[in-house]
């Protein structure tokens, strides 16, 4: 068996006395997507933040390509260079044009020349239909366009693993689709991903594995069909029922 890109073992995370994540273990093989579902506050964002080392974990370990990134002497900057993360609220840099948002990290972190960085940025923009927005400032773009730029920005550094945290929950239903199709394209190209989402239909399309997170624990996991169509745990059933009533299945 080949080594998984990401391997999380018995991860535990608490804020003060509140345990947010407990006994979380899973692994993500290369070219696959693992999707986390679960109600609000179940710990999805916290998990992704821990993987990206934006939060410190309390116990357990996280391995990236077999290397323990939670070790005390791990090089945080180097780890982050291998990870891409896209947040719910885009977080584009408002003082930079779209093209500069995208080329900043390749130029400053990877030391790629400006010409080469711009050329590959334009290629990415082209592919996702945003070529004519390159010289605009982010506030001139729609929410869906901003989120797609944020995705492009995070894949411009060719990350080993892409973390996507509810990237569509700040968008109208119409804009959701353009963003989701961008993610589908990335999946087809072989990007390894971990996602948190409320879009069950989308989870079904891109996920190789779905994990149901409940009060900080992985209660049930399996293929999208297993989890989304014939869940075993009563909590999973109830959660899916509620999502269904909200009209998102």
């Amino acid at each position, binding site marked *: 068996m080949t080594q998984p890109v990401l391997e999380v073992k018995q991860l535990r995370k608490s804020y003060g006395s509140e345990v947010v994540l407990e006994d979380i273990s899973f692994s993500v093989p290369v070219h696959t997507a693992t999707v986390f579902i679960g109600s609000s506050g179940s710990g999805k964002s916290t998990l992704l933040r821990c993987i990206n080392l934006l939060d410190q974990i309390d116990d357990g370990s996280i391995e990236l390509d077999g290397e323990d990134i939670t070790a005390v002497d791990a090089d945080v900057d180097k780890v982050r260079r291998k990870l891409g*993360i896209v947040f719910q609220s885009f977080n584009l840099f408002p*003082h930079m044009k779209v093209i500069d948002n995208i080329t900043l990290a390749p130029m400053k*972190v990877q030391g790629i020349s400006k010409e080469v960085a711009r050329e590959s940025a334009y290629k990415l923009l082209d592919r996702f239909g945003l070529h004519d927005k390159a010289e605009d400032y982010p506030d001139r773009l729609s929410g869906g366009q901003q989120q797609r730029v944020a995705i492009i920005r995070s894949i411009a550094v060719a990350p080993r693993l892409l973390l996507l945290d509810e990237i569509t929950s700040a968008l109208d239903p119409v804009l959701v689709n353009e963003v989701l199709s961008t993610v589908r394209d990335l999946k087809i190209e072989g990007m390894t991903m971990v996602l948190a989402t409320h879009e069950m239909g989308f989870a079904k399309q891109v996920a190789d594995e779905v994990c149901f997170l409940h009060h900080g624990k992985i209660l049930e996991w399996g293929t999208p069909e297993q989890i989304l169509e014939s869940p075993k745990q009563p909590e999973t059933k109830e959660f899916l029922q509620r999502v269904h009533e909200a009209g998102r299945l």
Partner: protein
Amino acid sequence: MGRPSESDSGKTPYDFGGTWIPSPLEINRRAARKSRNRRNALIAISSSVVVIGGLILIAVTSPGWKSLSDTFFAWAYGVEVLPKIILGFGTNVALTLIASSCVATLGLSIALIRTSRSPALAPFRILATLYVDVFRGIPMLLVILLVGFGIPALRIQGLTNNVLILGTLAVVITYTAYVAEVIRSGILTIHPSQRAAARSLGLSHFQSLRYVVLPQAFRRVTPPLLNDLVALIKDTGLVSILGVTDAVRAAQIASSRSFNYTPYVMAAIVFLLVTIPLTRFTDRTLRRSIERQNATGVA
């Protein structure tokens, strides 16, 4: 596609670059808006003339006007001493230029130290906080006196007795404290998610600061920094107390010789010629930065 109105009336009242002609409803609305604007302008002008004209009339017809204008507005004498005052003002300008570049560098450094979280910088953070608290709380005149008379009194070999240098030093010490606070508050207003986004792209702490946090912070603090610059120009006049021959001192010398206060008025006018345009400019920058922030309301 032709525009019907062009050939019909020769000139379109409004050019919208298309074939759309405003409806009668819109044309009426515009006409009403125009006449209302005209009426408002008329009211503003006439009320200004009445109020300002009235005030001037009261001043000029008052019994003390003659002696007042002789003492403060003896224009012929004013013009005579003007070259000396302008020469002195050159010192204020030079002092402003040198002091403001020192203040900018030091203020930024102190702001960065105070916003850093590195444990190695802890003692510097404490010192920086102390420094800012102390010098924001002392009248600048006192700082000038302490530095200007205190340092020479130490009689330490190699330390300068040059009042111009000591005066500049005092101004820099005081304004660095103000400016450091302004820049620090600008850094703190940048949402932590911006830094998180930069860090997650692999940028180092320093790079995140340099490319993401500081450029945004500076945009926000440009108007208050310009305000401080205007204040700095004025406050350079305070170093005259050390005997620096700036515009204020030049006016003082001229005035004490003739027992006439017109030189002071002339010095005031010279300062205003620089500070008023700068104040207007600051105002415009502020308005623009507010507009920009409103435009970037989301995300």
